[in-house]
């Protein structure tokens, strides 16, 4: 029957999708070495809400002298993370211990390969991207090993994520040209309907008077 074929086909597709899934699933955030990196993130305008697409963050990171897993570091990934205030009633931004499930740090800022010879603090400027949503944020850096697994991290805020947070206001996404096009199309739609209606009523009257 057709239904059997469809079910079989869908099972095949499902198996294909699953086979292309990643393997390691149990790496936990709590296993990472804390404070292995010292991170500071200074907004270009302190104490004010930053505008996405315009304002900048000045980010510095340095490997802490107390870092024990330092020999494993191969690359440093810098990410923008949500503060707890921006996670309320938003389960798609939830913090999870399992690293592959954790959704609290979705925005990549940059990635650097790690040079063990350089011991000084690295700093760079980051202009907030135009797709950053409105919210409260902090910066976290992960150190990854050769297998691209996180081994240590550092963040610009304290453990409870209450200090040194900064707020961002997203772009509205609106544009005058869009607004004008929207009004034009809407007016056209209503007008066209009206014209058809009046026309037909007129034709009907002419028919009846014949």
């Amino acid at each position, binding site marked *: 029957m057709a239904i059997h074929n469809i079910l079989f086909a869908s099972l095949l597709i499902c*198996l294909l999708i699953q086979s292309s899934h990643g393997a390691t699933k149990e790496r936990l955030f709590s296993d990472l070495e804390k404070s292995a990196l010292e991170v500071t993130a200074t907004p270009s305008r302190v104490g004010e809400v930053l505008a996405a697409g315009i304002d900048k963050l000045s980010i510095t990171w340095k490997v802490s002298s107390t870092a024990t897993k330092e020999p494993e570091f191969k690359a440093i990934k810098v990410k923008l993370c949500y503060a707890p205030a921006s996670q309320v009633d938003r389960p798609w931004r939830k913090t999870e211990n399992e690293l592959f499930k954790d959704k609290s740090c979705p925005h990549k800022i940059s990635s650097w390969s790690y040079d063990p010879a350089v011991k000084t603090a690295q700093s760079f400027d980051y202009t907030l991207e135009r797709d950053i949503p409105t919210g409260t944020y902090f910066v976290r850096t992960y150190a990854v090993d050769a297998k691209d697994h996180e081994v240590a991290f550092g963040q610009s805020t304290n453990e409870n994520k209450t200090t040194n947070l900064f707020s961002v206001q997203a772009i*509205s996404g609106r544009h005058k040209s*869009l607004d004008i096009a929207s009004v034009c199309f809407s007016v056209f*739609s209503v007008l066209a309907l009206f014209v058809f209606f009046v026309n037909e009523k007129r034709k009907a009257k002419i028919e009846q008077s014949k």
Partner: protein
Amino acid sequence: MASNEEGSIGTSLHGVTAKEQVFSFSADASSQIVPSDDPTAKFALPVDSEHRAKVFNPLSFAKPHMRAFHLGWVSFFTCFISTFAAAPLVPIIRDNLDLTKTDIGNAGVASVSGAIFSRLAMGAVCDLLGARYGTAFSLMLTAPMVFTMSFVTGPVGYLAVRFMIGFCLATFVSCQYWTSVMFNGKIIGLVNGCAGGWGDMGGGVTQLLMPMVFHVIKLAGATPFMAWRIAFFVPGFLQVVMGILVLTFGQDLPDGNLSTLQKSGQVSKDKFSKVFWFAVKNYRTWILFVLYGFSMGIELTINNVISGYFFDRFNLKLQTAGIVASSFGMANFFARPFGGYASDVAARLFGMRGRLWILWIFQTVGALFCIWLGRANSLPIAILAMILFSIGTQAACGALFGVAPFVSRRSLGLISGLTGAGGNFGSGLTQLLFFSSSRFSTAEGLSLMGAMAVLCTLPVAFIHFPQWGSMFLRPSRDGERSKEEYYYSSEWTEDEKQQGLHEGSIKFAENSRSERSRKVALADFPTPESGTLTNV
């Protein structure tokens, strides 16, 4: 009124039969039709005495019948696209507008609530202005709402716009009305089932279409927060185009448009208050209201939540989540007609009891798979559960409209409208209870919704017809009450019966003897109360 109803009710999946107006205002379709001087040779398809097509050829676009069918279902399809266009883009919209889960859930409720009222009003509009204008009004007056998405900046605006876009789901009614006046009673079940099922597919297609359009616009250089707004111009534009096509190429009735035809013959309009009263008084109407709320209702809810569910829970990309989610709505292409067909087969073997059992089985099985979907932790299992769930639920929708035409003859149109509104009501309720707060995760919400659907499908056991019985009870043994005529003429007062207004119901009753099980139909052969004995 010409009777061409032999076997019509028992034939196939149903919205309404061709004899009745979908809505209650004018009970007599022939009042609006002038038998033209020309013979029926001018029609591309064979027609009956009222110029309704007797043959359904989906590959043809011949005017006026097949054209009306295609314009009708595509309009309905377009409206489904617009109503659920936001759903696959929610992961982007929620970041742009800073929405919480509560905001998203409330907007989802709003998107299906508007249609509760607009579907009820559409019947009157079709009666007064014809099906073309009913469809065109729905399409072209809600198109501005779709374009207004470009102005939205926060949760309140988002909710308001989705509420107003939702009004366009009234095209379900105008589409079924249009096919009912264009197609003969013997095939109207199949025609309405196809129109309904193919239109519902829009809810699946939009999950594919909108992420694709969004992606293309982003490639062209727009930021995500602007790209989704531009993407909304696509469904809006489609609505305007369909509206113009309907008005240009469509025709209200087989013989012409409503406004240019001269009305002749007697116009026997039924009284709305009576029709309303008999619909509301019949407890079966309300059981169907609840049942459809947990078949079509959960289907509408899933259209709103499933794409986001796959995106969030299984970490799929936006387009991939859309592809997976779309397979839910696409199953409508065959699942809904299949449900109606299964209902007809069951009726042939077991009568009305068979129809009720089929309805219960499909709806319960669908709901059980919904529970499984919420509990599935791996992607392949989730997809499998979702597909089985979609087939069960959509077949239940088709099977329900195999039962609905028999609940009442006098108030048939209003009952169809109330049932349709029940679907939207069920969707609003389930979204409000399970998907609008952080109390349940989406996965838990799905399982709970499935469990609630299993419970709320149990009332089908209480639908009892004295002449045909119910799922567990036998038909009445009483000589009078066991006749179909008794049931259908009890909707008319003695005065009305004296005036002979109930003749149509008597004819319907005679033809509905097909709902007896094979054993009973062969055994006894009661004579009708009045009127002559036509073919039974």
